[in-house]
């Protein structure tokens, strides 16, 4: 399979809703799509990364209104265990049509939960819209804290926005300070689980989106599944996005392909290296567990 996965169309887009783009990380794609899907009754609610008691620590929440969605807009560079609520959303929250946003690995988890619903009773046909976000790697909360407070020397609670781009991790504070550190130095903080991930642009999402490939303030959008296509076309018909063809924008799809290839090649090497990680008494290699081969 191509590193970018199956998709019906790819386009550069930005939300036309100023309330959303004021708060969104880039083009406001995810927030706008969920707001549209809620409005149209395509979903009854969405599982998103909401705020928690600690600054910049996301917590999965089920939102059912645009206001709640807006409170959750923007990227936090530590994982929000959104799958935690996937069964709960259909139970305690009583949703028949669930929206969920997540990283590529979380989209994989969604599809596994649908195809092999071992402990996911009555969930498989209730996933109405699964939106994926591009992801190179992720950090634990404590790692994010070390980066912001130790390397960038800013307090977590005073940070207004965090961003990754152009080889740098950038922190913007409420009072206007900007601190940066080279992305290279972040590597030691990356979750080990991310080093075996073979998906960059959420190949299994209905629609996936991320900043890479598009100009500042815009996002690259892959429309992948039949469901995703129906939602995207509806949102376009409702004038919720302004768009540009991918071959009309800089840096364009080539950069997405380049980064995807880099990530997958590097991580495939990691997966392969695990096979010969250790040593048996007879001198042959002893491997670590490989989730892509056997449980």
């Amino acid at each position, binding site marked *: 399979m191509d590193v970018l996965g199956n998709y019906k169309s790819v386009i550069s887009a930005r939300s036309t809703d100023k309330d959303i783009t004021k708060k969104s990380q880039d083009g406001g794609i995810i927030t706008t799509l969920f707001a549209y899907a809620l409005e149209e009754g395509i979903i009854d609610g969405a599982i998103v990364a909401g705020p928690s008691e600690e600054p910049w620590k996301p917590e999965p929440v089920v939102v059912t209104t645009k206001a709640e969605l807006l409170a959750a807009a923007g990227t936090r560079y530590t994982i929000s265990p959104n*799958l935690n*609520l996937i069964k709960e959303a259909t139970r305690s929250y009583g949703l028949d049509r669930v929206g969920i946003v997540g990283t590529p690995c979380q989209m994989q988890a969604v599809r*596994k939960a649908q195809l092999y619903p071992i402990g996911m009773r009555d969930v498989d046909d209730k996933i109405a819209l699964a939106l994926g976000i591009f992801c190179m790697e992720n950090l634990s909360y404590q790692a994010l804290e070390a980066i912001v407070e130790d390397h960038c020397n800013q307090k977590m609670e005073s940070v207004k926005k965090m961003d990754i781009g152009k080889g740098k991790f950038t922190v913007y504070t409420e009072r206007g300070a900007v601190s940066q550190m080279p992305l290279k130095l972040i590597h030691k903080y990356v*979750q080990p*689980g991310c080093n075996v991930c073979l998906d960059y642009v959420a190949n299994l999402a209905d629609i996936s989106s991320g900043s890479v490939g598009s100009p500042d303030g815009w996002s690259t959008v892959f429309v992948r599944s039949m469901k995703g296509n129906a939602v995207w076309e509806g949102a376009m018909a409702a004038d919720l996005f302004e768009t540009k063809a991918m071959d009309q924008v800089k840096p364009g799809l080539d950069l997405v392909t380049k980064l995807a290839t880099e990530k997958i090649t590097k991580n495939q090497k990691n997966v392969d290296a695990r096979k010969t990680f250790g040593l048996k008494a007879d001198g042959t290699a002893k491997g670590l567990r490989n989730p892509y081969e*056997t*449980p």
Partner: protein
Amino acid sequence: MPGRTPESRPEATPAASQPQTKPAVKPSDVIVKEKVEVVQKEEKPVADKITIGELHLSGCTGCLVTLADNYEGLFKLLDDYADLVYALTLVDVRHVPEMDVCLVEGSCCLDDKLSVEELKEAREKSKVLVAYGACAAYGNITRFCRGGQWNQPGHEAFVPISEVVDVDLYIPSCPPCPQQVRNVAVMAYLLLKGNDEQKNLATAYLTPLMQLAQRGNEACGCDLMYDVINQGLCMGCGTCAGTCPVRAITMEYGKPNVNRDLCIKCGACYSQCPRSWFNFDVMNNYEGIMDAIKGAME
């Protein structure tokens, strides 16, 4: 085979006709409708169905109820794909028959001779033996039994069925999920009756569940530590916490934390985890497969 579906049942002897004491006279206000003879014309059954049975050992019947929790889906399965040839309360067959797929519910009590005999008989008479549900696969809650319970205090030793017989396929979790057993039933049908393409799909789909059966019969929330986090594979997606049927798992700073006092050892968390196994050949085709299953159930 002793007692296998008796060919002839003792017919009930017709009651001796009582002499009428008085002639039946129809009251004049009774409207007589012409009795319509309903001929129950049996439709030709689908020729190539597979046969499925459920053997009930030391379980709570939750797995069997789960099968029925497919509601109209169960009827569709039974109409088009599978004959249910053996199951407690659902089928009037007293002895383990020959079958293509045997779903075994419950762990096996070593102190109960009948359980052991029936389990071995089911193994002998089925093509595919499935540990259906956590008790059969991993022992589940019966792992905590130490005997002394009413009304069989002598029943003390309970083991996952793979301690007694070879098992081909696992469907973990307590209770298992109706959609999972439905998917396995459809795939088993495709495997045994389908064309080459369908056989390949079914093989690819069923492989990880068969590998689970090879992996062993001990499950616990600890698997998340041993085989995912300790192996450097966890990325904190939250699936395990979302799937745990007893809410023993919470996500603390992006990683699962298992309350081991609550864990019932059902194996759901680990088998649902996208990093326990992830087969791209099947998952990349999720849309087609889900449509196919949906289509098959319509």
